[in-house]
């Protein structure tokens, strides 16, 4: 059933005719042309593009729990493409462009809201770093501008630019095309659209092993719901990628850390854009429901517990209260943790593995949501053709041996 206002009206007048299911609940078949491990946004997007762009419809997405239940449903939904290196900027802008038409492409309102992303500078080093990004983005044709603290306040009126605070706002970079989207809807929209093309989305199905042929190539996959033959497996398991790949005998350049986020009680519109401060660790926007959505930093140790320390959230709220002192009386409503898989250069790994027929898409760290459609798109290309798309070619596993990293973190680095 196609979603539209008319469909809603029809439903309103015929409440006893239920909506059709957004996706089926199929039993796994014994064989597929390709299997995707991980039913988060990236995995579902991969399936959708495999089916829609490459005609591979006899495929399955296997999800250990419920779709969109990992980092897709736990992040702060920030979308932007103002990355420093041309490789990263190309990848994230590819994604941003897909986001711009995603609701229509999926017939599912993912509420992509390009309300602008402000990144704040608090010291000389920040200013240089933001300008370097702005100018690099100009070369790549990506919108991003450096603006004064006053202009930042005009764009985001509740922002405190008082020189009295410990690290006053000195300026900001503004990407107007950046914004937020409704995270669950992205997962569900991809799931529904993929399902409509024939993709089997199989929940409560954990992958336990890999079957390989005499030559070592992928022959199939073992799961808690039986063995499945397939020549191609794509692992898109976020924080658990290394756990899955360990079962396949591969060690990865990944570490999984807790990352916390929180929301406030809902209030009427007050924060009109996304505000990020890497220096004092504050990331805030307001959802369409009215909740202030706030991201914290990662805890310092590897953990799969989906729970972090109180001091980490407290630090973030200190920063929020510095930048928005009127929010001292706002209240934290929900606080949760995700498991983020972090690579040494903070850039993702998208490509082939030493095992023929086995592909990985992981290492998105703290910022994977924004890449969901783009990641799925280029990974689908990689799985379908057996070779990376030009956009993800630099993001292969080989880079760790050669040392040709795409080190966004180091480049944004550390004060002198």
């Amino acid at each position, binding site marked *: 059933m196609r979603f539209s206002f008319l469909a809603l009206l029809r439903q309103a007048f015929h409440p006893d005719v239920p909506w059709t299911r957004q996706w089926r609940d199929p039993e796994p078949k014994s064989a597929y042309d390709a299997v995707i491990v991980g039913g988060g946004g990236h995995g579902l997007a991969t399936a959708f593009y495999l089916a829609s762009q490459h005609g591979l419809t006899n495929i399955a997405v296997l999800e250990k729990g419920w779709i969109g239940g990992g980092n897709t449903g736990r992040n702060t939904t920030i979308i932007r493409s103002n990355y420093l290196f041309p490789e990263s900027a190309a990848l994230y802008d590819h994604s941003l462009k897909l986001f711009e038409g995603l609701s229509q492409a999926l017939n599912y309102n993912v509420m992509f809201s390009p309300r602008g992303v402000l990144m704040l500078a608090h010291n000389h080093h920040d200013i240089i770093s933001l300008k370097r990004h702005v100018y690099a983005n100009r070369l790549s044709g990506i919108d991003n501008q450096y603006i004064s603290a006053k202009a930042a306040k005009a764009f985001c009126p509740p922002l405190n630019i008082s020189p009295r605070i410990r690290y006053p706002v000195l300026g900001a970079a503004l990407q107007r095309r950046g914004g937020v989207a409704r995270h669950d809807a992205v997962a569900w929209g991809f799931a529904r659209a993929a399902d409509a093309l024939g993709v089997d989305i199989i929940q409560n199905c954990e992958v336990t092993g890999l079957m390989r042929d005499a030559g070592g190539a992928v022959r199939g996959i073992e799961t808690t719901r039986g063995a499945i033959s397939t020549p191609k497996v794509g692992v898109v398991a976020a924080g658990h990628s290394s756990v899955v790949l360990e079962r396949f005998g591969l060690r990865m350049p990944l570490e999984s850390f807790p990352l916390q986020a929180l929301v406030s009680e809902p209030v009427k519109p007050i924060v009109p854009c996304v505000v990020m401060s890497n220096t004092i660790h504050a990331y805030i926007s307001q959802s369409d429901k009215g909740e202030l959505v706030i991201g914290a930093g990662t805890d310092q140790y590897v953990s799969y*517990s989906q729970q972090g320390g109180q001091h980490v959230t407290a630090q973030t709220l200190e920063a929020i209260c510095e930048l928005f002192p009127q929010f001292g009386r706002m209240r934290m409503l929900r606080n949760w943790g995700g498991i983020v898989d972090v*690579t040494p250069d903070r850039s993702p790994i998208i490509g082939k593995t030493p095992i023929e027929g086995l592909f990985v898409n992981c290492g998105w760290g703290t910022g994977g949501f924004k890449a969901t459609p783009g990641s799925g798109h280029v990974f689908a290309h990689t799985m379908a053709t057996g070779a990376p798309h030009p956009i993800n070619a630099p993001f292969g596993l080989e880079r760790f041996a050669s040392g040709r990293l795409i080190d966004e973190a180091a480049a944004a680095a550390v004060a002198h």
Partner: protein
Amino acid sequence: MLLIDCPYCGARPEIEFRCGGEAHITRPAPEAARDDESFAQFLYFRRNTKGMLAENWWHVHGCQRWFHALRDTQTDAFAATYKIGATPPDLPGSAS
């Protein structure tokens, strides 16, 4: 916030410590530094164990000593802490 049993000072709150990541990674000797692939294994590839993981911790706001810990990354519960150079205590499930 974790409660960490420094082998020198006793139980102290996590904010006194810095986590140094996976323990018992052997730094290759120059003559053993072979190809880029194997050097990358040392530099970047980690167990990232879901379960019992041996780690390095530094009591930076305390005795300044580095030590090892065995911690279950599913629950964040510490099974043991032990000094550098000591053998990890035998624990069920720590074989990873």
